[in-house]
């Protein structure tokens, strides 16, 4: 009997001990957010990558840029630079830096000074100066900056005083500011680099990061988790949550289970959208990302060198079916190569009509009354702008059959596909484009300019001098209204010439519990948790309203 007594009292004791701090449990959970991410980051320095997973985990959490994008119109706003000035010729850009911005204090580094011009010098010289002590650390590849030819654009970076810095450019480029506001152009700590250099631990700069962002890195276990603490002295005010945990769950079903079981507060790229929308305590959110999936033609080869044939194709394809089947309703129908969220989007653009009779007439006019046989190249991999190109190719095949065109679907392994595409072996192809920054030029120039058709990123090989003149003119001016007009003109040329048929702008999805508030996703670039917080009462309130509704229904 004694035994039983002591057993019961032991159980009571344990119950008492575990129950005593219920309040602080609520608060730890309350002050933290768990994000189920789809993969591990390659590095903690966004300068070194273009991968979306790495950018999501690092850029907006750990770092700041000199300038940033804000609002629906994606205007440039001050960040670490509190203002900036561009000379009339566009060749000198001066940034006036913010004072009293502190770097992260962590277990491995304690900063003794605030952010200043030396940090800006260090961050950009590391990229452009091949002799820089940190240039070759972590491989010496800076893919984003190499794509925009950053080192040839910048003549030199001059420190005027501790809080003023001037970029001397070799040519005017109104995309320069846009590029500095991307997630890749982050500011690192020069003082930290100095310390690492002294201790012979240079590689740590990209593994144990120090930045000025709203969160600092606490712990990283490869393939398992990333733990961030909030940066208390963050210059825009401390984040609303104290702890941010990335629970790295690469399996789609694993992320769904954890979301449903409330083990993560937010989940990236969720599957089973219906299941999530059915639940009253979860929200499925989406943003239309800045990208476009398209059906392009090799305009140097017959029959697609004939503009009438290209127009006939546009009339013969039922885009809505492609959207419903391939994107499962997760995308917006593309009316031009620019997504609707871009500031240069022409609001008067019309949807391409689906009209088989017109298509047949156009084909007859072009000299193909009995149709022809063509190749359609479909990419073998899933991309954000096109989740299943092979299925899309099959649907297009069925559509074109109706106007007597026989389609042979061709597909190669991804690298071979791109290589042979660049060689111009194709007749028509399915591909897409994801923007690096919101400037519309990022769509018009790399996809369709004459220069791009020679170096291979314009796979339609379409080259139109009027179009090229317009997009060049658009880069030379800073007047937004004027640029908008120029891009509308460029778009009109595209609509008439149809080197490619834009199909869809796909969305990016995320699911979260209803108690999580604050925006995380934007139309381009990585996610940010700075604004996120937890509100404990939302679920209860929502349940009540649901009950009320059912009650009223009964009364009715």
């Amino acid at each position, binding site marked *: 009997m004694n035994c039983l007594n002591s057993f019961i009292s032991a159980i009571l004791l344990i119950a008492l001990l*575990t129950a005593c701090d219920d309040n602080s449990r609520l608060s730890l*959970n309350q002050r933290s957010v*768990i994000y189920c991410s789809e993969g591990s980051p390659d590095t903690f320095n966004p300068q070194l990558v273009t991968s979306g997973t790495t950018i999501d985990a690092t850029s907006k959490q750990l770092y700041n840029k000199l300038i940033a994008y804000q609002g629906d119109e994606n205007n440039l706003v001050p960040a670490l630079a509190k203002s900036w000035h561009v000379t009339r010729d566009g060749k000198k850009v001066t940034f006036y830096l913010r004072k009293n911005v502190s770097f992260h204090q962590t277990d491995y580094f304690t900063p003794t000074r605030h952010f200043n011009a030396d940090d800006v010098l260090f961050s950009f010289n590391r990229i452009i100066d091949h002799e820089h002590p940190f240039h070759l650390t972590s491989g010496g590849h800076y893919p984003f900056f190499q794509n925009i030819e950053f080192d040839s654009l910048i003549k030199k970076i001059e420190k005027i005083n501790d809080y003023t810095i001037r970029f001397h450019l070799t040519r005017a480029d109104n995309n320069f500011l846009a590029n500095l506001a991307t997630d890749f152009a982050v500011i690192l700590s020069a003082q930290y680099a100095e310390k690492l250099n002294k201790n012979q631990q240079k590689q740590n700069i990209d593994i144990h990061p120090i930045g000025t962002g709203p969160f600092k890195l606490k712990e990283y276990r490869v393939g*398992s988790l990333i733990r961030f603490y909030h940066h208390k002295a963050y210059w825009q005010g401390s984040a609303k949550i104290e702890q941010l*945990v990335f629970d790295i769950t690469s399996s789609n079903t694993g992320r769904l289970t954890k979301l449903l*079981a409330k083990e993560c507060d937010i989940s990236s790229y969720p599957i089973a959208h219906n299941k999530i929308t059915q639940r009253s305590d979860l929200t499925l959110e989406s943003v239309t990302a800045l990208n476009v999936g398209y059906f392009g033609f090799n305009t140097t080869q017959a029959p697609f060198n004939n503009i009438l044939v290209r127009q006939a194709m546009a009339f013969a394809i039922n885009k809505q079916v492609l959207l419903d089947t391939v994107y499962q309703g997760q995308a917006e129908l593309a009316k031009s190569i620019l997504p609707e969220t871009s500031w240069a989007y022409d609001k008067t653009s019309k949807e391409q009509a689906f009209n088989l009779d017109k298509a047949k007439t156009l084909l007859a006019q072009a000299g193909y009354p009995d149709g022809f046989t063509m190749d359609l190249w479909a990419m073998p991999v899933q991309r954000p702008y096109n989740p299943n190109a092979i299925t899309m190719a099959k649907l297009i095949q069925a559509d074109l059959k109706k106007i007597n065109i026989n389609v042979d679907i061709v597909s190669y392994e991804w690298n071979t596909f791109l290589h042979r595409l660049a060689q111009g072996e194709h007749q028509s192809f399915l591909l897409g484009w994801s923007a690096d920054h919101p400037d519309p030029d990022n769509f018009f120039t790399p996809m369709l300019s004459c220069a791009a058709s020679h170096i291979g990123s314009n796979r339609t090989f379409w080259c139109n001098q009027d179009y090229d003149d317009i997009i060049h003119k658009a880069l030379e001016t800073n007047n937004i209204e004027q640029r908008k007009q120029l891009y509308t003109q460029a778009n009109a040329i595209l609509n008439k010439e149809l080197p490619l048929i834009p199909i869809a702008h796909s969305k990016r999805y995320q699911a979260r519990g209803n108690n999580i508030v604050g925006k995380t996703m934007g139309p381009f670039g990585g996610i940010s948790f700075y604004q996120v917080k937890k509100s404990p009462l939302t679920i209860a309130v929502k349940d009540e309203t649901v009950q009320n509704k059912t009650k009223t229904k009964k009364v009715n």
Partner: protein
Amino acid sequence: MLIFTLRRLSLFVFTMLLLTMLSFSLSFLFPGDAVINLSGAINVTPAQLIELKARYHTDSNIIWQYIIYLKHIISGDLGLSMASQSVISHEIMNLLPATIELSLVALFIAMFIGIPLGFIAAIRHNKLSDNIILSVSMIGYSIPVFWLGLLAILIFSINLGWFPSAGQISLLFEIELVTGIQFIDILLSDSPYKWQAFRDATAHIVLPAFVIAIAPTTIFIRLSRTSMIEVLQTSYIRAASAKGLSFKQIIFRHAIRNALIKIIRHVGLQFASLVTIAMVTEVIFSWPGIGRWLIVSIAQRDYTAIQNGLLVLSCFIFVVHILTDFIYAALNPLARDKKYGT
């Protein structure tokens, strides 16, 4: 007792020799170079390969190679994982405690539920409750564990939301890895959220431990039922009852002790099958244990990890087996040496 101990130890040594021989021969049977399979060093330069071959004495005869291999194992050098190029012995030391923790909890659950139920069934032999217990245990034994695990997640995590579905503890708690056994680490840590962490870890272990415990529980039910029935039919029980002891006194003072001794012998045997079930369960519940690691290694064709993981796991099971034998011998003088018993 000394002879008994020596006998067990020699059995241990010979079994380990056989196991290492099997593991050693695996490196020749797996595709690829045997040295690379043994060391796991896949990205070596030709110069490093020569050095590696010298270290494993590949030019000598096979027996000498085997002895060198044993030396490597005894010094704790289990090679590198082919998939991640991390040191296998470190990985195992981090992962094995989690599996031990989960298996022990499951074993205790199985014993605390299975043995009393078996006794009840034996006492109410051939009555309704006996039949119910037996048929339920038959059903429990027949359910495949991967299905049960998924069902448990669906019901208790997703629909009811009572228990978490994955991991050892919520990622919010930072518990430093000391012993690797989560509960001990939590108690050792100086986190202000110690007791919340303890409760969270308890919630995390409930589902996987119960899922693992189902099959052993049913076995314990049947074992304890049989052994109790046997004990109840012995003459000393009849004598006790003839002396006028109450039914309660007979069961608690005489029958249970004697019936338990017979069951303890089987605990070690059950542990082996329990660890096998735990491996599958670890995958379902994302438990960071050695079973999940081993299954992932198999999927990745990580031969070095498979070899050494199997070696360590079987060694561990064997140690448990011997330990239960010792406990059994300590409790039951009959088992120590036949000459004292008969």
